[in-house]
């Protein structure tokens, strides 16, 4: 599917990412975790050609990413990014339909019946059917983020890249978004990469975790292999308690704040 080998990314003199490798497998969700400035989002933007790496190679379905046209990449890799502010009135249906752009024979013309049908289907999948003729600006945060996800899903891309898809969402909406991603991965053997600050959400929903710090890969593996007190302390410089979630059994990470303890004393 999507494979990155020895990726190095430079901003001028500064090295943002150095020698990071990553392989996304069909049907699997991979999470990238790390402190601010670790190079997580930079890595994600590089994977769909948004940033040209200074070194290394990215392959989509076995072929170098650079050999694809812009639209061909968009057909294979969908991105859920931090949402841009909308300055024109657009309905939810139009917004999601825009995700079918890569399927057009050329960059102009009209959507086909297939595009409309696919959009309807995804609106059902994300439970936005009833909101489809509402304007995007009228939606609540959770609904908007679902529409952004729907636009990525409607591309039918085999790879989903999500940049903090649950930021600013409440607990229920966080779970909804990731459950939708999980469902898509299970059903269509889609592979997903999620950049997130929420370690527990990553533990619950991901199959693999890449731990990054200062642009380097610190550890890669199953959540229970990577989310250990030692590794997390090394990366975040915070002491954490890791135990098993009483219901799901996945690792549960609780920071132990020294300052907090001092206050209690």
């Amino acid at each position, binding site marked *: 599917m999507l494979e990155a080998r020895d990726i190095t990314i430079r901003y001028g003199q500064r090295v943002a990412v150095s020698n990071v490798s990553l392989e996304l497998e069909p049907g699997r969700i991979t999470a990238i975790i790390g402190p601010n400035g670790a190079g997580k989002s930079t890595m994600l933007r590089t994977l*769909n050609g*948004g940033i040209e790496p200074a070194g290394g190679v990215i392959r989509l379905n076995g072929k170098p990413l650079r050999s694809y046209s*812009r*639209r*061909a*990449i*968009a*057909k294979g890799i*969908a*991105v859920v*990014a931090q*949402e*841009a*502010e*909308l*300055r*024109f*009135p*657009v*309905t939810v249906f*139009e*917004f999601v339909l*825009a*995700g079918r*752009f*890569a399927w*057009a024979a050329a*960059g*102009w*013309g*009209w*959507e*086909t*019946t297939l*595009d*409309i*049908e696919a959009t*309807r289907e995804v609106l059902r999948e994300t439970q936005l059917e009833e909101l489809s003729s509402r304007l995007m600006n009228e939606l609540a945060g959770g609904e908007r983020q679902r529409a952004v996800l729907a*636009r990525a899903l409607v*591309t039918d891309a085999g790879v989903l890249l999500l940049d903090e898809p649950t930021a600013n969402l409440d607990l229920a909406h966080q779970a909804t978004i990731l459950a939708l991603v999980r469902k898509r991965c299970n059903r269509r053997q889609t592979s997903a990469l999620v950049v997130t600050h929420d370690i527990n959400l990553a533990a619950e929903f991901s199959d693999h975790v890449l731990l990054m710090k200062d642009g380097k890969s610190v550890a890669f593996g199953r959540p229970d292999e990577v989310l250990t007190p030692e590794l997390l302390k090394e990366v975040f410089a915070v002491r954490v308690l890791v135990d098993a979630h009483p219901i799901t059994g996945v690792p549960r990470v609780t920071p132990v704040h020294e300052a907090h303890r001092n206050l209690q004393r």
Partner: protein
Amino acid sequence: MSTQKKSIESGHATLRRALAVCGLLLVGLAVVLVLAAVVGSQRLPLASSLCALTGRSDCGLSSEQQAILFDIRLPRILLAGAVGICLATAGAGYQALLRNPLAEPYLLGVSNGAAVGTMVALVFFGTHEWSRPVMAFAGALAATFVVYRLARGRAGATPERLILAGVIVTTFLSSGIVFITTLMDATRIRSFTFWLLGDLSGTTSSLLAVTFVAAGIGVAVLALNARSLNLMMLGERDAFDLGVEVGRVRITVFVAASLLVGASVASSGSVGYVGLVVPHLVRLSFGSDNRIVIAASALAGAAFVILADTVARTIIAPRELPVGAITALIGAPLFVYLLKRR
């Protein structure tokens, strides 16, 4: 089965809606055209004028009326229509590309760029008529890129930043215009001041033809990029992620819009606010899909400028106002409203 049928219907719904919108606007444009042809300092009989406009010669118009209709009014109406098409579609293009409902050739300083180009052509290559649209195009293009560069901050171009950049470019170019004006002899200065505000009275048939050709090319290019513009309107990064070749679309639309503005300014000066008023009303009535907005703006823009020019030449007849004064009278309050509403 029934859902499939429904989806087939809605698959063509946008296209059908676009055609319906254009049909409606075409009828409106025809009405405006006829109205503008008969109204003026001398009123022409409606039935006879209609008859004459269809190309017959035995309609009962006196030879003087015939001359007013075909030699004075019609060329001016056609020019007004072409200018309306150019400015309205250029405005729609800039707005979608810059994600800014306030973007407009006049406010961005692009019109002034074209004006400087035209004036340079007049002063230095006065004998070559074709040099005017060419230099106007070059001036518009240069102004477009300067404004774009100025407006683009670290966090992208905010609407306010863009308008400020437009003000800077406009005032800078205005001083250039003043400088060139001083190089001219006094008799031409008055007609120049008029031209700067938008003046449809002094055209030639070749300039009219150039304007129409530029309008055709510009609108066609914008229409071909309309679907990409729909995505650019949602955000450049999102458009990139969804498969739009952002850089190529940006350059193409900038060049097409500059061509439109250049042609319009070379033939009629800087008519302001058309690119703001028309696309705004179109979006309000028909939605934000640029495939509809651009076609509808072309038709509505033509009608709007023809109408504004009819007002400009009748309201204090037999004297007349520059058409730009009328469009600004309508456009400036709308701009304030749009700015307040944000």
